[in-house]
């Protein structure tokens, strides 16, 4: 899948940083960079935000394009270490793009939340509200733990699953959940902060119990 080498990526980022001196070269580099990573990032955004995609026009493209613009404008924020091999750099760049896209999406959804209330209005005569479920593929090629997690996710209601994934999505070690995200969730699901916490705690417990029942790993005795 990957074709770019570490040195090529370094050159691309360098050309971005010299865009004011040589715009033509920067543009060429941007085209190569976009062709290298846009498919991957589109898939990442699509899979992670299936539920939100239904409600917003061109969401995947907007998030992907904005993420590419951020790298184009601040190329030297991405760190390439001397010891990194071609493959390391490729994976790091993909992870870095995902972090940018995640933050970008959060920003866009928050702005939208501030701008507009989420009320149901059917103003199109042919429109009927029938949102799709988050698709859980009972796919093959999964590791044992992936399969276990898929199975337990399928036991949750669509609403609980959506809430759980949204809360996990903003999880940062040692930090409280962002207030704006919690406010967005309570508004969209017409529920309370306390209820969201309860759902999260209930789902966490189920996941842990399911893993305990279905794996040989046992909790350490104290």
């Amino acid at each position, binding site marked *: 899948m990957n074709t770019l080498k570490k040195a090529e990526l370094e050159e691309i980022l360098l050309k971005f940083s010299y865009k004011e001196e040589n715009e033509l070269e920067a543009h060429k580099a941007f*085209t190569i960079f*976009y*062709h290298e990573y*846009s*498919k991957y990032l*589109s*898939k*990442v*955004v699509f*899979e*992670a935000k299936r539920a939100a995609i*239904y*409600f*917003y*026009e*061109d969401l995947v*493209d*907007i998030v992907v*394009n*904005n993420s*590419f*613009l*951020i790298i*184009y404008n601040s190329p030297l924020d991405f760190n390439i270490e001397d010891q990194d091999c071609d493959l*390391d750099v490729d*994976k*790091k760049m*993909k992870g870095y793009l*995902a*972090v940018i896209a*995640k933050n970008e999406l959060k920003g*866009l959804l928050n702005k939208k939340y501030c*701008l*507009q209330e*989420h*009320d*149901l209005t059917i103003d199109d005569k042919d429109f*009927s*509200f*029938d*949102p799709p479920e*988050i698709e859980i593929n009972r*796919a093959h*090629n*999964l590791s044992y733990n992936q399969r276990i*997690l*898929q199975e337990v996710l399928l036991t949750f209601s*669509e609403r609980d699953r959506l809430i759980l*994934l949204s809360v*996990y999505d903003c*999880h940062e070690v040692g930090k409280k959940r962002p207030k704006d995200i919690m406010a967005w969730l309570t508004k*969209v*699901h*017409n529920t309370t902060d306390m209820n969201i916490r309860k759902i999260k705690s209930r789902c*966490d417990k189920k*996941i*842990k119990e399911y893993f*305990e029942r279905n794996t040989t*790993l046992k909790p*350490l005795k104290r």
Partner: protein
Amino acid sequence: MIQINNILKLLESLGYLFPTNPETVTEFEKRYGKEIEEIKPKHWDNPLEILKKGKIEHIRIISKIKNPSYEGLAQAARNGTAISDEMKRKMLEDRNNAKD
């Protein structure tokens, strides 16, 4: 016992969350490799259009929701079937009558 970090890693590798570290990127690619290749992003033929347009700061809502779980229950009550055309026509008629 499975820890929160392991759950997060698994969710990233499955694509439910953004895969942000090399390990989950590898797993994600393993899972979706073929589908990734088949995607054609909107600006594939002219990426420079993105630079011309600049950053987009707002997104447009396609449909608005008030209580998705209520809608889910309504659909469940219909045994999971969508609203029929006949039913939609009747609902619209009722709504228009109510306006008059």
